[in-house]
């Protein structure tokens, strides 16, 4: 049973370096995101009691090294790595450090460049084995072909989700993929086929970037708010796999889909909210079949009803429950370590009503979901309260 966080926790600052494909230095991007978050919070680094740095490709404890640029204050610095969910886990660690009373202010920072990494699906110089074949594109493509078989989902539905996220990113200056025109379903379908039925415009944008968030107690948040609405973290849940029928132990990029349903269920219980209370959602949309399945696993609609949500436009900006409002992994980008923190960045802006052209009207409650290879699932729920 999910219990309430022992102390109330609030997001007091966020920062982000634009996601990109320019092979910029990760340390420099991390510095930009971290300093922005400190400025946004209105504090200096000496007020931070603990730092959780997330990176997949930075190397051994690179997160600890990067912290030195912010100041040698002697605080505990922890390097976090949990595949695509790295940034979400770093944020979760910061939340629990404050909730558990370890510190009053904690910072989570993610930085990476996916283009510089080896890892999943890349055999490198190793002796060839069949376990090496499962590129994420292939793994999620098999989710897609099975869904097409079971539910009758069409490639056009997958393309519609991807086009939606490309178009959301047009209003996000920090997104990696910013089309200069309205992206159409036909355009997505016509891009290069990479793993049937997925085309290149359906695949997440792998690149570089950095993002940061600072969390604190209610007392600190109120002291710093200056009348700005507060953003409270009402749920922070993380799970690993449980056994399911058809469990794949070798080569599965992420574990059973049930993991998302279980993690979200615990998050809803912890926050005392349900799917109908959500105003916006960010998910691990590495491929559009994921976003489609997560509509159902997060309880936004019933099983097999996700296609109808797409057809109705319910999950686009202006719809009933917008998903991936900043472009998602599809178009905002997926550098690795910072991806989950970019979701926190976006949701915080939305709940403060500072998201500009992509603002969800009257947004009060947002959910952030990430899945990571290995595998793990992380769900956070953030809610607006008046300062």
């Amino acid at each position: 049973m999910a219990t309430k966080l022992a102390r109330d926790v609030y997001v007091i600052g966020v920062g982000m370096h634009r996601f990109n494909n320019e092979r910029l230095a990760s340390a420099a991007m991390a510095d930009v995101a971290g300093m922005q978050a400190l400025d946004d919070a209105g504090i200096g680094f000496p007020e931070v009691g603990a730092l959780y740095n997330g990176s997949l490709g930075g190397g051994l404890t690179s997160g600890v090294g990067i912290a030195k640029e912010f100041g040698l204050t002697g605080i505990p610095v922890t390097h976090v790595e949990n595949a695509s969910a790295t940034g979400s886990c770093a944020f979760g660690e910061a939340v629990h450090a404050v909730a558990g009373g370890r510190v009053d202010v904690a910072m989570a920072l993610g930085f990476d460049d996916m283009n510089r990494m080896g890892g999943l699906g890349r055999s490198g110089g190793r002796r060839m084995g069949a376990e090496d074949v499962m590129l994420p594109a292939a793994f999620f493509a098999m989710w897609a072909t099975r869904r097409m078989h079971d539910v009758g989902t069409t490639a056009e539905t997958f393309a519609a989700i991807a086009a939606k996220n490309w178009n959301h990113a047009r209003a996000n200056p920090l997104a990696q993929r910013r089309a200069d025109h309205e992206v159409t379903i036909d355009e997505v379908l016509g891009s290069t086929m990479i793993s049937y039925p997925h085309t290149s415009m359906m695949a997440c944008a792998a690149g570089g970037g950095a993002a940061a968030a600072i969390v604190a107690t209610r007392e600190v948040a109120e002291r710093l708010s200056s009348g700005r609405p507060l953003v409270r973290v009402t749920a922070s849940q993380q799970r690993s796999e449980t056994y399911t029928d058809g469990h794949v132990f070798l080569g599965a990029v992420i574990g059973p889909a049930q993991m998302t349903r279980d993690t979200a269920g615990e998050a809803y219980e912890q926050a005392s909210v349900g799917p109908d209370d959500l105003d916006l959602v960010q998910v691990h949309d590495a491929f559009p079949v994921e976003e489609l399945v997560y509509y159902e696993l997060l309880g936004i609609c019933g099983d097999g009803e996700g296609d109808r949500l797409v057809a109705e436009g319910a999950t686009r900006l202006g719809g009933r429950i917008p998903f991936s409002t900043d472009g998602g992994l599809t178009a905002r980008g997926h550098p690795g370590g910072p991806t989950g923190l970019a979701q926190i960045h976006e949701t915080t802006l939305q709940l403060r009503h500072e998201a500009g052209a992509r603002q969800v009207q009257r947004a009060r409650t947002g959910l952030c979901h990430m899945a990571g290879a290995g595998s793990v699932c992380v769900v956070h729920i953030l809610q607006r309260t008046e300062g």
Partner: protein
Amino acid sequence: MAAIQVPTDPRLFRLAEGDETRPRLLGSHAPESDLYFWPRRLRCPVTRTPVTDVDLSPEGVLYAWTFLYVPRMGSISFGDTGGYGVGQIDLPEGVRVQAPLLGTTDDWQIGSPMGLTTFPVGRDDDGNDLVTFRFEAVR
């Protein structure tokens, strides 16, 4: 004299022996839960009880598949086909296996029978043929 075939990873599968026509994946069976697993486990992940080594059935049914438009898989080139298939195959023991597929997209139908086979991926330092496993449609 024909070169000796050697599995790339003898912890995962073995070659056909005696009258067998297909190789075998090497799995585990947990008597208490009556669950089977692949690859082998140290103990049952559900009941934490002991497991025994078993050879799994060499045939199953296709659960899902895709064709990956990538010309190489590790050291193997697929330049002639432009890529390769991968699938998830459900074995009768309740084990789902991910593996490359032999054939073309016309050969793969969800729910159709598939059989385990091997294919060469190179040679080891002793000159033996290294083989790994994949599934093919059973006709």
